[in-house]
């Protein structure tokens, strides 16, 4: 999740190794590398493709599966160009080292970044196999076709299976510019393909990190100070050890590890520790104190993230001025699978296994913590029962390594849900000061969006980063890239420091900014008597613009706004719901300059102010749809994720502590709350964009705009409370 996710990459291929009778291709991308360069030490493959002599095709996936479908989508792309049966592909999970890198799963870029390299790898292998067949038969290559794992000589109908050709193919040069299929000829890409891991999941045989069982493995939980920066002052290790099954109490960098034969014993042992904490310097931190800091920050100019024209002067000279402040809460990931990691430190090495979105970071941080060389640290990646950005951090893996070293045994550490809510990292609360200036005719002439919040601090920002304006725009997705064509635009960012950990959370900086932006556009529409769709379309001319070196395609954005409205019956009366007020709202976003998405939400509000979201119609243009079934799933999922933050739980701090401990006091959407979702995908053969995060940001404003349509109440603070509307 970098500030500039659209790094230009060039890919190239080489034979990684020829082991026995197998064809192995490494697929890599390295900044600035030229296609066709000779293999060199700088070659960094990220995906491996192997075809064995029995025809078995194995793809090593370098990204973590956490429900987003990457272990389905990446093999589909390869199978398409290689021309093999998708169902027969074996999927291996990559580990760091071993020539594979770029393994961080975040920023919704797995399919986007692998699209071209994987296609080229498949096409190159297919070309080599066809050439091998032509050589074997002594015929013209042009007379040979491929067909689902076979090369076919068209004039004679002779066939050879890929497996029979790999030994010959592996001796051929790798074509550096293999012909790729036309999208018209796709047989698999664009089809609705079910999840690769589905059968294992529904039978209970899928292995997540917490499911690992290793001979001799002990289980650990950690008592951490509820206040970040605090440390244990006194504790009763003897009491913990009196719990049957508890082996040891080991102080580590983050607290006191209770190590036992079973997790249950470790939990009971932790209860018995009776720790007295030295709470450290942050015990006065609270949501209220942070809110006050944000209010001060948002009142004064910040670091400019975009300046078009002179918004300050235009606002001062405006015939009418609108002002509003929007507030987004602290949020947590609250994934269902408790965090866990396995570590075994022995003989100067560390073996690690678990669910991580960033095995390279785990390797790096564990190596640093233990003082080991990188190649002494091995990381195996399991399935993840909910990532959402939480598992981009390596804290829990480092703890496992520290405990294993301390007790000289293989250990799995587990965090309960409460542990993670108390001491994980968070989506930071933010305030958004919005101003618009209207001219005599009511046309928007100026736009100001000031964001006040804290930077990510899992790795504290350096002085250079704090001085770099790009750090500020990189923390304000959805703000500085506002897609609307106001004649004068000023966006800026007022940074506030915070002691608690702030880090990646599904769609990161975008939901708060998009919430404020899309709601405030509707405020302009309401103030000027314009239809929210008509106003947006009018603000989406000319067709495109460039900001920070990236282009926003307003036509594609217009198209999804129109399509969502058309399919939802925008402008037509909603069916009444007995005893409830009904309304429809629109919002949209261009995520990461590429995934264009619009929602129309239909809501009803009861007399007590309770909001129900009945239906959401989505239109999306994400370029080539690789797996529409997966795309729809990510949209359904992103809607629920965004609505949990908009309508359900928030994280609050008091006396330096998080006040929530689980789904009871940090509720998330339930099956009763889930709207019917209707997805319309705009046909496209453009490069695919990401789909894990883009569905999140526009749902909150679509629902809040619908609430306004139903009630005339403009709620600017999330999560929405029934008391806001009663």
């Amino acid at each position, binding site marked *: 999740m970098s500030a500039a996710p659209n790094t230009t990459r060039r890919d190239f291929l080489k034979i990684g190794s020829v082991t026995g009778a197998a064809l192995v291709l490494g697929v890599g991308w390295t900044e600035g590398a030229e296609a066709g360069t000779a293999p060199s030490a700088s070659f960094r493959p990220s995906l491996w493709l192997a075809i064995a002599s029995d025809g078995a095709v194995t793809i090593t996936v370098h990204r973590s599966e956490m429900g987003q479908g990457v272990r389905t989508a990446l093999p589909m792309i390869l199978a398409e160009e290689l021309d093999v049966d998708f169902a027969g592909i074996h999927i291996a999970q990559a580990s760091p080292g071993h020539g594979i890198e770029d393994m961080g799963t975040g920023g919704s870029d797995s399919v986007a970044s692998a699209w071209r390299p994987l296609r080229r790898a498949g096409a190159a292998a297919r070309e080599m196999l066809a050439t091998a067949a032509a050589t074997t038969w002594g015929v013209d290559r042009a007379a040979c076709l491929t067909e689902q794992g076979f090369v076919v000589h068209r004039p004679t109908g002779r066939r050879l299976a890929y497996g029979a050709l790999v030994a010959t193919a592996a001796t051929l040069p790798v074509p550096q510019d293999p012909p790729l299929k036309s999208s018209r000829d796709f047989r698999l890409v664009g089809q609705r393909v079910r999840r690769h891991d589905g059968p294992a999941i529904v*039978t209970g045989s899928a292995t997540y990190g917490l499911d690992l069982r290793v001979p001799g493995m002990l289980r650990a939980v950690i008592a951490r100070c509820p206040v970040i920066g605090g440390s244990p002052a006194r504790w009763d290790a003897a009491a913990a050890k009196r719990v049957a099954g508890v082996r040891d109490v080991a102080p580590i960098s983050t607290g006191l590890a209770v190590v036992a034969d079973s*997790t249950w014993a470790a939990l009971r042992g932790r209860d018995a520790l009776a720790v007295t904490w030295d709470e450290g310097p942050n015990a006065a931190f609270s949501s209220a104190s942070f809110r006050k800091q944000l209010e001060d920050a948002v009142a004064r100019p910040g670091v400019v993230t975009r300046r078009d024209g002179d918004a300050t002067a235009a606002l001062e000279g405006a015939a009418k001025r609108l002002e509003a402040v929007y507030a987004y809460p602290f949020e947590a990931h609250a994934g269902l699978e*408790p965090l866990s990691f396995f570590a075994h430190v022995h003989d100067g090495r560390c073996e690690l296994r678990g669910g991580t979105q960033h095995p390279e970071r785990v390797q790096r941080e564990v190596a640093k913590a233990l003082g080991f060389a990188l190649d002494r640290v091995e990381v195996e990646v399991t399935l993840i029962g909910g990532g959402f950005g939480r598992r981009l951090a390596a804290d829990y893996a480092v703890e496992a390594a520290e405990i294993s070293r301390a007790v000289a045994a293989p250990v799995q550490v587990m965090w309960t849900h409460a542990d993670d809510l108390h001491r994980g990292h968070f989506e930071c609360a933010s305030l958004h000061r919005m101003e618009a200036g209207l001219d005599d005719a009511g046309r928007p002439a100026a736009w100001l969006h000031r964001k006040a919040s804290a930077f990510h601090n899992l790795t504290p920002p350096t002085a250079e980063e704090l001085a770099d304006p790009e750090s500020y725009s990189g923390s304000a997705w959805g703000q500085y890239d506002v897609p609307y064509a106001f004649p004068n635009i000023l966006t800026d960012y007022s940074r506030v420091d915070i002691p608690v950990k702030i880090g990646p959370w599904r769609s990161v900086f975008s939901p708060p900014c998009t919430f404020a932006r899309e709601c405030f556009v509707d405020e302009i529409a309401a103030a000027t008597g314009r239809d929210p769709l008509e106003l947006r379309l009018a603000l989406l001319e000319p067709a495109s613009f460039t900001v920070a070196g990236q282009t926003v395609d307003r036509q594609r954005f217009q198209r999804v706004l129109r399509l969502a409205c058309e399919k939802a019956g925008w402008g037509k009366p909603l069916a009444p719901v007995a005893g409830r007020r009904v309304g429809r709202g629109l919002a949209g976003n261009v995520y990461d300059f590429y995934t264009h998405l619009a929602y129309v939400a239909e809501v009803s509000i009861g007399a007590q102010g309770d909001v129900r979201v009945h239906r959401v119609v989505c239109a999306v243009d994400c370029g080539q749809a690789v797996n529409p079934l997966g795309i729809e799933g990510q949209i359904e999922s992103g809607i629920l994720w965004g609505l949990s933050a908009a309508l359900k739980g928030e994280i609050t701090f008091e006396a330096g502590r998080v006040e929530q401990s689980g789904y009871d006091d940090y509720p998330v959407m339930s099956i009763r709350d889930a709207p019917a979702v209707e997805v319309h995908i705009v046909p496209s053969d453009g490069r695919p964009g990401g789909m894990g995060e883009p569905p999140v940001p526009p749902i909150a404003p679509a629902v809040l705009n619908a609430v306004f349509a139903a009630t005339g109440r403009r709620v600017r603070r999330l999560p929405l409370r029934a008391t806001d509307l009663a």
Partner: protein
Amino acid sequence: MASISLTVNGVAHRVDVAPEEPLVWVLREQLGLTGTKLGCGRGICGACTVHLGGTPVRSCQVPATSAQARPIVTIEGLSTHGDHPCQRAWLEEDVAQCGYCQPGMIMKTAALLQGTASPALDEIEAALADHVCRCGTYDRIRRAAHRAAALKAEEPAK
């Protein structure tokens, strides 16, 4: 520690358990039946749902000692070949994302279908209202539950 006998998926096991130790830990850490998922550990999320004497229970809230003498069925024992109508329906609707909640969802729905051959949407939602899916696959779960009921109706009577 007490030595107790548990019958899980038709197999009798003798295990040593701590007083009050919840069934979920015994299933997962002693018997290796990790298909039963540990979620909140506080009876809120439903991920650890198993059948105890034919009734769906949250195995994080049931002391193992109280689960003796009644048959326990976990996701691993729901069907012989992974082809219970719920499992088939869940695959056909491509329900799972991260998948961690789904064994609990499936066990709860399978129990619902035991008593209610053709549940209405309200009944499905009532059964699953206190099960958490953080990926938000609820719309597909609704469809899969209806489909499972239809698949079950097609099966020859046992």
